[in-house]
């Protein structure tokens, strides 16, 4: 848990696509002039999504330059929030809720089952780079416990059968990206 590790800047070129840059510019417009720092959280989300799944020093430097910030301001923020990963992660990050309402309704068992199934511990990634297992704090799904999220997509009222099915679907999806993308967005809007 205690890091105090000094990270290395690799000086690899990173850049958003034109479309994302346009979104960033729009986003900055949401905030009063000179307050572009406000866009930091959403831009870091975009960076994590588009530029490698985690925030490397290079990516954070790039975000800092986009928003005209001092890099340390970005490091401070990125390390504060638990949704930002500072180390590489697998394609699917499975985050199991471990807070009391889930824990008393089977959350702990779900986590154990996943560890066993994926043969990895919490914080680790499977050798094929597909799954990273993590824990999170209360996801606001206590009534539908136990809950987990896969890359911010919620899965609720789980049991071992549901987990099996979920892993299968994800594996299939990874093998064939054109197969069903069961995101919330496609279900709702």
């Amino acid at each position, binding site marked *: *848990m*205690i*890091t*105090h590790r*000094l*990270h*290395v*800047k690799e000086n690899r070129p990173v850049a958003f696509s034109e479309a994302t840059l346009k979104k960033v510019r729009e986003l900055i417009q949401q905030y009063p002039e000179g307050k572009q720092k406000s866009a930091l959280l959403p831009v870091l989300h975009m960076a994590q999504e588009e530029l490698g799944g985690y925030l490397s*020093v290079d990516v954070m430097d790039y975000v800092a330059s986009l928003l005209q910030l*001092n*890099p*340390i*301001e970005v*490091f*401070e923020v990125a*390390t*504060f929030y638990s949704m930002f990963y500072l180390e590489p992660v697998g394609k699917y990050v499975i985050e199991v809720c471990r807070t009391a309402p889930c824990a008393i309704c089977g959350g702990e068992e779900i986590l154990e089952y996943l560890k066993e199934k994926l043969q990895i511990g919490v914080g680790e990634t499977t050798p094929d780079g597909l799954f990273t297992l993590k824990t999170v704090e209360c996801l606001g799904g206590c009534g539908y416990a136990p809950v987990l999220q896969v890359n911010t997509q919620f899965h609720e009222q789980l049991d071992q059968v549901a987990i099996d099915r979920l892993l299968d679907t994800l594996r299939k999806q990874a093998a064939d990206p054109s197969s069903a993308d069961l995101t919330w967005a496609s279900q709702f809007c």
Partner: protein
Amino acid sequence: MVKVTIDNIQVEVEEGTTILQAARKIGGSVVPPAMCYYSSLAGSGGKCRTCLVKVAHSSARDPRPMPKLVASCCTPVQEGMVVLNQTSHEVVEARKAIVEFLLINHPLDCPVCDQAGECDLQDLSFGYGLEETRYEEDRREFPEIDIGPFIKLHMNRCILCYRCVYLCEQLTEKREHGVLYRGDTSEISTFIRQSIDNEFSGNVIDVCPVGALTDRTFRFKSRVWFLKPMDVHRECPACSGKAVAWMFGEEIQRITGRKDRYGEVEEFICNECRFEKKSRADWVFEGPRKIKRQSVISANHYEKMKKPSIINPIEGTIEQSDNSET
């Protein structure tokens, strides 16, 4: 001007003054200890909670007490406010608790720490510490790192007062270190490997209340109580050039800013003065420094409150305070 009473002593201060500053105007034992507040750094204070006091009467208009203890460093006074510091059992108990919290993860390495003898936390635990620790778990441990050729960061000892962060934000061109992570895993760090060597960055050593940021050009050379501090100055294009030279015999072992009795630097000095001017010929000597450190160790021994006196820890002399700010 408003009148406030702190530990039964009345004082008149300007509107908007904080309780802490009002207490400092009185001086002596009514002054709450401050580990994170630093008057010249905007935004500092409120974090360590050692300066908590009880407000027995909020103001002349509203005589009710405030429901919780308040941080005196960031609570402004009001006309007719009555504040209890040393005279409140509740305050003393809370302060003991805060000191305990600050110490649980603090290493017990005072014997090898460069700050020993001028450490605010050491003073504080002398005044408010429990005899024995109730903390039996593992302590947080970080490796020590060098941030640049002049400064060493010993994160184990840090109490996360944020002073060094505000200093670099406000005094240097570009802040390169900050507080990372959160909760009890927070740490002061640069995140990436780089050195902090802005022109004024050396001042972090002076504002750090503990031995977390220390002078690499001085480390382990000596202990402060063997050194004789001299007020010195020089012509410096970057700063005021007013400093203190810590002498071991004829040798300048380190240069620091001039601290007032609350441990706050009067004028910040530049890195060149601090780290590179170590020869007697660089400086004009004014005479021995009259240290008026408001140490809790000494504050605790006061019996009478009207005329606080200050013990000079170096020369062993006792000075009568004239109750005015230095």
